[in-house]
């Protein structure tokens, strides 16, 4: 009985120890979780490269001024595993909406999370904010 109880306790606690590791760098070192943004525009270039892929998008403001934004995301192997197809899913000329977080230096550079396509389909181009930067609790006790 004691054994059964122990196994039950282990099974309940199990999800708490799932620790997939984000790589290749910390979100918080480069991007600001306090600067979420949603931008709509037209894709100008898509780069499937390691350690991160990028896409560039022309964004027009209320006055008609166009700024080119750069968005970072998963490397190619992860993009494929999350449902992307190179040169098919997103191409220059496509109109999309992007949700992400701006770079700490305040330039037109952002970490991309969710891309919404013209037909309403959504895919993640990058991981959630805060990944890989230590979370809310350091590995050691704070004294």
């Amino acid at each position, binding site marked *: 009985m004691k054994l059964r109880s122990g196994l039950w306790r282990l099974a309940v606690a199990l999800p708490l*120890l799932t620790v*997939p*590791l984000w790589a290749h760098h*910390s979100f918080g070192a480069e991007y600001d979780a306090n600067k979420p943004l949603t931008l709509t525009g037209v894709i100008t270039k898509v780069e499937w490269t390691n350690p991160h892929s990028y896409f560039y998008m022309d964004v027009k403001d209320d006055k008609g001024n166009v700024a080119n934004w750069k968005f970072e995301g998963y490397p190619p192997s992860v993009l494929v595993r999350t449902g992307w197809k190179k040169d098919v899913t997103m191409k220059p000329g496509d109109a999309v909406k992007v949700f992400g977080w701006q770079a700490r230096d305040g330039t037109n550079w952002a970490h991309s999370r969710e891309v919404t396509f013209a037909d309403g389909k959504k895919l993640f181009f990058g991981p959630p904010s805060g990944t890989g930067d230590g979370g809310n609790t350091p590995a050691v006790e704070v004294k």
Partner: protein
Amino acid sequence: MRGVATAAILAIVGLSGSMSAQTSPPTRAKTSGKSAVPRTREGKPDLTGVWQGGTTIRGSWEEANTGTGVGGTGKDASAPVVLSSNDRPAGREGAPYQPWAARKVLESYNKRGIDDPAALCLPLGLPRLPMLGLFPQQIVQTPTQIVILYEYMSVFRVIPFRTTHPDDLLPSYMGNSVAHWEGDTLVVDVTGFNDKTWLSGTGTFHSDSLHIVERYTRVDKDQINYDVTMEDPKVLTKPWIIHSNLMLREGTHLQEYVCPENNLDPGYYEKLLKEGVNFTRP
């Protein structure tokens, strides 16, 4: 029924070595016995396969990564929460660093891991790499050696079945590994590390005296229990024990990952630090 009981016993036997030294109970699912552990001609568990680290979810890569977490597709928002990289899981004790070393770990945390060796495209080291969830790893087992291929950073380990390490070890990122069986648990002894990697979590540095013992216990067809003991008398006060898992991902193939291809981080970090960036947490 017999299969269930046998599998449960194997799981407990596999854990017993590490349970005695830890301060919190390991978190392990009851072994289901859904499917038998594949075995070699010699009768040992066969660990061959493509695996995903740091997870307990069964199924193919696509099936197991439907949540909104790191590397997930977001198709199932109710899927189990996936913690990120260097986050400390709820319930895990603080790493047993000596006071001076703990302060150094905290410095990295307060800088949000801007000094992460991974940002330089360096190998992650142990046990960080096997616990990586975003990229798969492939184990190839033969009667004389085990080879582990990691997609992330294209790193490999060739692990012979022997009990002693070579005398002329060059310090390395992944160390020198030798393996033997203890019952149905594969025990891998690793030494010969350099001091350029992190163990598990932001800033968790170590010295070149690091000694790691990994225990791989395949408790059923889908799951390997991965138990790690880290010893480093130069920076730790006692052995640091971590329990994690590898889950079988049938149908997944390792792909190329050439990190230095377009690594913009070092230059960007230099710019941020020069400008005095504020890393304060919300």
